[in-house]
């Protein structure tokens, strides 16, 4: 594979016009060039991958194709004809359908009602149900038109989105990171559906950064890097290193996890039950978890299965009525707030960087105070904050974690996602925690920063800190964890070492496969107690 390969592919029938051809597409936003002279060609019946790291410009390019955004320069040809796509309705009229990464469904409505709302032409409910059933049977996408969306899992919701697109009989289907919400098994089902669609002549634009999936599914790949075309490739003929090099422009080095004997229990959850305050949230049920000094425990799971609630219960943003259900260093902390838990040695990296882990409009040195004032005595004296101590601390974090910024007085929102995440992780690490909890620490972060963050967590573990990581990236968890547990439907699975388990087992647990066994065990225990 080289950058000089022409942007065509083997599946193209000579003489026929490509389904979609973008030439020289550019889009500027204030301060960023999202797309810079990007070319893309998709043939009929082709599954075409659009690859790139977060921030490479994939989403902007797809928004342009779907008519959400208009390009500053460049042309779009559809079936060989030049077109202007000025709205999603126009895109749908041409035969372009899109399944978004974040679903746009009304939770209080049924499947059929949601689909009816999205159709450009009003369809009578009686025939709509029949059409939904027909499409869902034909493509192996079982959905019940009468079901309410809030009762459905994320995978089921995605099926609704796909069925909704297919009802319009699209010629081009855009899928934006569709597998980030699916278990490994559900991914295979989805791939079956996509291959079937492709065999019927539908073109598919598949946006992803997961190399193995792209190699399995896609005929051709277009790679973006920093808003520009980095090249095109035939994924089946490439190995991971080659694809990654194209995507990030450098080599990956694997993480090292030296063997280590874990110490005493530092973080302990015992039979934690917590109803969610969000009506569509997940209730935590009978959650047991132990994290020892010097080990990294990873929590895998499909998003929306209680991760958010579990993190809030650990951080203290959500209190538990039973104080003893959460213990840090043996102390019951269920009813203590975040600051009190920090003083007992908790460090916490939340999922949202901007607005939760940091105050966007404040400088990095003021953001150091956010959690530093509660734990670092130098930053707070008699109710007065020491700006000098905060500045020194922030400067230390910036240097140690190689945070690219204009210094400690830079405003948090001026940093790139990866650099801000390095700052937040660095802040929490340098506050010297005994227990470190990190939620999606590398989500949306470029590969270089991800590497550094993972290494920082491993170094904490090597320094005898208890580390808990929640992630949706199974590869990441298998690479850095001493033990793995799975969260599904607000329940926590038993723990396994990576060597004891497999992607298949974790995958089946992610769809709740461990729950029946756990319930049976509980019944036996209850009977024994009675």
């Amino acid at each position: 594979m080289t950058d000089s390969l022409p942007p065509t592919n083997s599946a193209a029938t000579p003489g026929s016009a490509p389904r979609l051809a973008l030439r020289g597409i550019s889009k500027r936003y204030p301060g960023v060039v999202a797309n810079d002279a990007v070319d893309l060609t998709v043939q009929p019946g082709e599954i075409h991958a659009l690859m790139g790291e977060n921030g490479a410009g994939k989403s902007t390019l797809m928004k342009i194709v779907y008519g959400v955004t208009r390009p500053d320069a460049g042309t779009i040809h559809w079936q060989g004809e030049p077109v202007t796509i000025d709205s999603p309705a126009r895109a749908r009229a041409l035969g372009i359908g899109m399944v978004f990464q974040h679903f746009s469904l009304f939770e209080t409505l049924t499947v059929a009602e949601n689909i009816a709302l999205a159709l450009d032409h009003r369809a009578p409910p009686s025939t709509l149900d029949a059409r939904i059933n027909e499409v869902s049977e034909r493509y192996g996408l079982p959905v019940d038109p009468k079901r309410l969306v809030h009762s459905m899992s994320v995978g089921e919701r995605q099926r609704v989105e796909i069925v909704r697109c297919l009802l319009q009989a699209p010629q081009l289907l855009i899928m934006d990171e569709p597998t980030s919400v699916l278990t490994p098994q559900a991914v295979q089902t989805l791939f079956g559906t996509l291959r079937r669609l492709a065999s019927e002549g539908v073109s598919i634009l598949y946006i992803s950064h997961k190399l193995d999936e792209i190699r399995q599914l896609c005929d051709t790949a277009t790679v973006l890097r920093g808003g520009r075309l980095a090249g095109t490739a035939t994924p089946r003929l490439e190995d991971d290193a080659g694809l990654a090099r194209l995507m990030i422009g450098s080599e990956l080095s694997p993480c090292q996890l030296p063997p280590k004997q874990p110490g005493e229990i530092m973080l302990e959850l015992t039979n934690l039950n917590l109803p969610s305050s969000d009506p569509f949230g997940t209730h935590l049920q009978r959650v047991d978890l132990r994290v020892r000094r010097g080990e990294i425990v990873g929590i895998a799971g499909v998003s929306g299965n209680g991760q958010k609630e579990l993190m809030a219960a650990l951080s203290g943003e959500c209190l538990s009525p039973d104080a003893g259900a959460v213990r840090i260093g043996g102390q019951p902390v269920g009813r203590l707030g975040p600051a009190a838990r920090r003083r007992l040695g908790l460090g916490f990296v939340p999922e949202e960087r901007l607005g939760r882990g940091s105050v966007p409009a404040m400088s990095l040195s003021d953001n150091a105070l956010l959690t530093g004032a509660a734990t670092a005595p130098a930053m707070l004296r008699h109710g007065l904050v020491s700006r000098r101590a905060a500045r020194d601390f922030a400067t230390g974090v910036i240097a140690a974690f190689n945070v690219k910024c204009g210094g400690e007085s830079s405003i948090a929102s001026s940093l790139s996602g990866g650099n801000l995440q390095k700052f937040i992780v660095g802040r929490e690490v340098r506050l010297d925690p005994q227990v470190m909890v990190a939620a999606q620490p590398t989500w949306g972060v470029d590969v270089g920063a991800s590497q550094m963050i993972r290494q920082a967590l491993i170094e904490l573990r090597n320094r005898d800190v208890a580390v808990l990581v929640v992630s949706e990236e199974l590869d990441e968890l298998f690479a850095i964890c001493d033990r793995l547990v799975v969260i599904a439907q607000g329940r926590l699975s038993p723990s396994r070492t990576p060597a004891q388990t497999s992607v298949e087992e974790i995958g089946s647990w992610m769809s709740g496969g461990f729950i029946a066994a756990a319930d049976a065990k509980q019944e036996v225990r209850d009977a024994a107690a009675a």
Partner: protein
Amino acid sequence: MRLRLEKRAAPSAAMRWAAPLMATLLMLVTGMLILVLLGKAPGDAFRVFFIKPLASVYGIGELLLKTTPLLLCGLGLAIGFRSNVWNIGAEGQLTIGGICGAGVALAFGDTESSWLLPAMLIAGIVGGMLWAAIPALLRTRFNTSEILVSLMLVYIAQLLLGYLVHGPWRDPDGYNFPQSRLFNDWELLPLLWDGVRTNIAFLIALLLAALSWIFTAKTYAGYRMQVAGLAPAAAAYAGFSERRNIWLALLISGATAGLAGIAEVAGPIGQLQPQVSPGYGFAAIIVAFVGRLHPLGILLGSLLMSLLYLGGEQAQIELALPSAITGLFQGLLLFFLLAADLLVNFRITGSAR
């Protein structure tokens, strides 16, 4: 071609501070234009409005006198606004502060005593805090909007004042006017110097401006409130209590408004009347924003607003204009400030989409 607003990547810090100055300038120009349309000579109107009030020592004294309640209310409100707590009812807290302070004077003021004046001030402060505690309680308990509750409480406070001066607190020797008795000398705040009506409340207000700067810039409590205002989820993440923030913001702004109220009643007014404020509590909202929620800016803003009050009075006398002229200028100032702020944060582009 369609005009639309596009967010600026980084709003200029200099323009943020220039915006209030530009708003003031535009207010002057537009205001003068309106006066010209009303048939007044522009030079004349400008002189009457902005020069004449300041042409004597007495005039300067009046300027500082009216600056005092605006500064007091503005400082308190700004602390709340910075933390996203929207107390719109400083006018009501000011009224209750006046009532409570006056109540102490009416109950115990017949004999001279040195603790009376401090007790009146404290009663005024406590009264303002109690009135502000109502929206705080309802917000933290039932999640009601403090904007609506504090605003509605303004009218209740004013009706309560009306009831008191028409009924139980009316001066029996006052020829049936709806007023309390006149305060004794020992019930009035000492004047700063002879020949003006400015009293020591102005010095207290200056002291509080300094304290509020220390509070916002140096204390952990001030930092927590600012975080709560800028990013509520970050405040929750760091463990800063939202309830404490709401209570603190409302109690502080209630206290300063209450102090402003008793300082008016025990100052230039010297008795309880059906109206103790020409809208200082509302004008202070504009003052807080014109001053960029910064104590020094609020001091300058309240001087400007005070001048608008004086100029408005002067214009009524000399140019035979209605009293609404003050409100007109206040409105222009706010309008242009909001417009300027919009353009600081956004730019207008001509492209479609």
